[in-house]
């Protein structure tokens, strides 16, 4: 009798990569269901939107999934010249629908379908197939897709609020709101306008399609961790780092324990940490490497949230840290055989954290003390032109960046403000939506009582400061 001669072991575990993908999808099902419920069903019943347009988020998810699947099949068929059946087989093995699905879940609710398709296509082709296909990619394909969309069509991304929320809450997402407040605000202004932190946990706040319900994400995480599907150390250390850092910052600027909780429960942190940072192909394999990866992600996310005008920072952090994965693994291997040297990364991280936290605390405290009345050093008049009874002031005013404007004054009254440069203002669209410049001019006599545009406080204050400065100049 002839027997099969093959290298051992001759028994294998009954787990395989297709089961892994199935488990990831199972963890995503409740999240997708909730996303559809919140963004389509609620919208349909509580707003005047037509049935078809309220289904838009569902169509986005379907588009993302289909486009990433189809573009992979086409790549196998036409670029790698495989037969159609083989192409289908290959895509079954390569987690092909995951990038499109994850991408659609991190987008705002009203992105045009063709933009979603563009992102899913770029994510699959550029983020995955060009690197040599499944298992070879350096960056998370879904995030490559996100990067392509946000670089090319940022203006089309629009507001993350769905129609129902636009009716209920005039404003931005909690993180955008916090950013425009200068990272400092009492509980009522930061959390209160969205309900309570419990709303953050259950997901009844505005945000991207799939990332709002922290409860369901946690359930998914537990399921994936217990079934040993994902590298659980990464999300745990990532979220813990963000929590600890923001807790210290909160303490430094005089806010309570709700502040770090707010940071952890806001935006895409949980979703990114559980579903994107743990993408097996683009995360470290050593245990120490995974811990370092998680901590670095946390530090970078906090840095982006507090030191740049971008309110979110999770996607950017994950994308950036993808590059450092080989480094983390190298350190992980080194420390495995020389564990006593663990103090070296600990010291490096401690220094990083201390510097970062101190910078942020002093930044936030500074801007907290700089009240709106402190106009003098925020607005500069660079030129004054007199023409009869009309005076034109050319001013620069600090908003997020620097606003440049020409202000025409007749009889000590501002007649017009022409903004010539607003490139530094990230939330300028809110200003335009509210026609805020007109409001500033009409309310110039009582400027201190004019409310800032929610979601764009910095730019609003900059405009108000211009009015105050120019009027006080006129009175001299």
């Amino acid at each position: 009798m002839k027997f099969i001669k093959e290298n051992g072991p001759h028994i294998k575990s009954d787990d395989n990569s297709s089961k892994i993908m199935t488990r990831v999808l199972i963890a995503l099902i409740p999240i997708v269901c909730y996303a559809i419920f919140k963004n389509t069903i609620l919208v349909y019943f509580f707003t005047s939107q037509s049935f078809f347009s309220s289904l838009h988020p569902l169509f986005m998810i379907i588009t993302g999934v289909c486009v990433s699947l189809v573009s992979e099949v086409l790549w196998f068929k036409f670029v790698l010249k495989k037969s159609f059946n083989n192409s289908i087989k290959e895509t079954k093995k390569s987690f092909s629908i995951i990038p499109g699905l994850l991408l659609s879940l991190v987008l705002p609710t009203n992105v045009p379908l063709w933009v979603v398709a563009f992102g899913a296509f770029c994510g699959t082709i550029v983020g995955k197939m060009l690197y040599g296909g499944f298992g070879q990619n350096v960056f998370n394909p879904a995030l490559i897709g996100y990067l392509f969309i946000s670089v090319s069509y940022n203006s089309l991304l629009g507001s993350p609020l769905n129609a129902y929320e636009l009716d209920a809450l005039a404003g931005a997402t909690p993180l955008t709101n916090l950013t425009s407040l200068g990272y400092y605000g009492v509980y009522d202004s930061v959390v209160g306008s969205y309900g309570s932190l419990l709303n953050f946990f259950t997901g009844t706040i505005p945000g991207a399609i799939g990332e709002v319900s922290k409860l369901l994400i946690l359930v998914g995480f537990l399921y994936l961790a217990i079934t040993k599907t994902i590298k659980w150390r990464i999300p745990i250390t990532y979220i813990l780092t963000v929590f600890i850092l923001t807790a210290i910052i909160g303490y430094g600027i005089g806010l309570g324990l709700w502040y770090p909780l707010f940071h952890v429960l806001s935006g895409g942190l949980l979703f990114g940490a559980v579903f994107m940072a743990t993408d097996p192909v683009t995360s470290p394999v050593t245990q120490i490497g995974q811990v370092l990866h998680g901590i670095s992600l946390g530090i970078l996310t906090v840095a982006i949230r507090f030191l740049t005008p971008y309110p979110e920072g999770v996607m950017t952090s994950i994308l950036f840290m993808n590059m450092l994965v080989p480094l983390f693994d190298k350190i992980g291997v080194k420390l495995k055989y020389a564990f006593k040297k663990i103090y070296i990364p600990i010291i490096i991280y401690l220094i990083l954290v201390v510097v970062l936290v101190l910078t942020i605390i002093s930044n936030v405290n500074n801007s907290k003390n700089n009240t709106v009345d402190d106009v003098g050093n925020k607005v500069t008049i660079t030129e004054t032109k007199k023409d009869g009874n009309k005076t034109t002031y050319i001013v620069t005013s600090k908003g997020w960046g620097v606003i440049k404007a020409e202000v025409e004054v007749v009889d000590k009254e501002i007649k017009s403000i022409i903004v010539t440069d607003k490139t530094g203002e990230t939330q300028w669209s809110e200003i335009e939506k509210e026609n805020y410049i007109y409001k500033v001019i009409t309310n110039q006599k009582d400027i201190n009582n004019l409310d800032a545009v929610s979601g764009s406080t910095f730019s609003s204050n900059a405009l108000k400061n211009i009015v105050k400065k120019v009027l006080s100049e006129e009175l001299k």
Partner: protein
Amino acid sequence: MIRGLKIDGKKEMSLSEEIIDFSSPDKVYVPLMNNNTPCDCLVKKGKKVKKGTVIGIRKNMDFPVLSPVSGIVVDIDKCLYLNGEEVPCVVIENDKKETVLKKVLVDDIAKYTKEEFVELLKKCAVTGMGGSDFPTFFKYKSDASFLIVNAVECEPYLTADMMLVKLKAEAILESIDAIRKINNIKKCFIAFKENNDIVRNAFLEYIGRYEDIVLSPVKNIYPMGWERHLVKSVLNLEYERYPSEVGVIVNNVSTIFAIYKALKFQRNITKRIVTITGEGFTEPINVLVKVGTDMSSIIKKIGKYKGEKLKFIAGGPMMGTALSSDHIVVSNNLGAVTIISDTEDYKNECISCSKCVNVCPAKLCPVLIMKNIDNVNELKKLHPELCVECGLCSYVCPSKLGVRDFVVKAKGKVRQ
């Protein structure tokens, strides 16, 4: 922390009350091998031999290969060894008289000096019967404070050690006690899986007679039988290369029984228990066979193969070698033959899931070794030489890659 994995043991398959005695073959094929080193042949065709006659020698250690039967050497041929290779062997026709070189019966087996003991182990060609086939006298050359008897048998399907304990617990304990007295060992431990009641009960019956022998249940994981795991689990000690560094000797329970034969009768072990098991065989069972028996003749007498795409494995499914034929001869270190169907593998690309890293008992990074297989400098940093080839990395791999093969290859590359 002791790393490993719970694997379905499937031991009940081959367990039975008795073992079948097949220890009287017509011909034996004694492989001239010791611990994967070829030995020189010392007999010619036509020579009459008795049980215990030296028929070969391992030159570099002056370690003998002894005849398991009495009879006439009829040929010097080649036979299939458990590593899958054809190795030289001495073919002896068994006269079934079982005549021994010198009939001895020692009453008090503890009455040896340490030097006599070591010399006896060498003369009687006692080797590691758990699989290594390494000459046992070497372990007793230096002084030790602890002896760990390995009755773990963590490899799935195998029950040969369990059956030996069940049948010979008394002799094994006597042997351990003698070894302890001769070598001035402080304490002896018998390590077995915590859920293995057969081994526990067999020893419990007699262990009351001995003071310094302790039953030491260990976790039911694979590879718990690895020396390093045992020393860590039983004594909480760690060592660089050999357990002797921390004054520990680890012996398989069947080796202890071979030592018993050496102490009591001053001759070599000529028979051993072999498990014939697996889903691919109709009558899984333990048999008692002479060293040098062609297993195919015995398998034919017991049952039939069943199923398609069968694998015939010398040893257990985790560490054993798949052979192309069933004409394997029994050697000291062959504990089982397992016949199972080939697995249907859903092969895929490596997804860096890190399961192999989490499970590796030697704390290696198999996935990184696999990815750096062509980069020797990088491989050296990953220490593939520490691999014990337990096969868990390939076992857990969700993409069903032959991870262990890469690590073994890397091992060779680094050693060059």
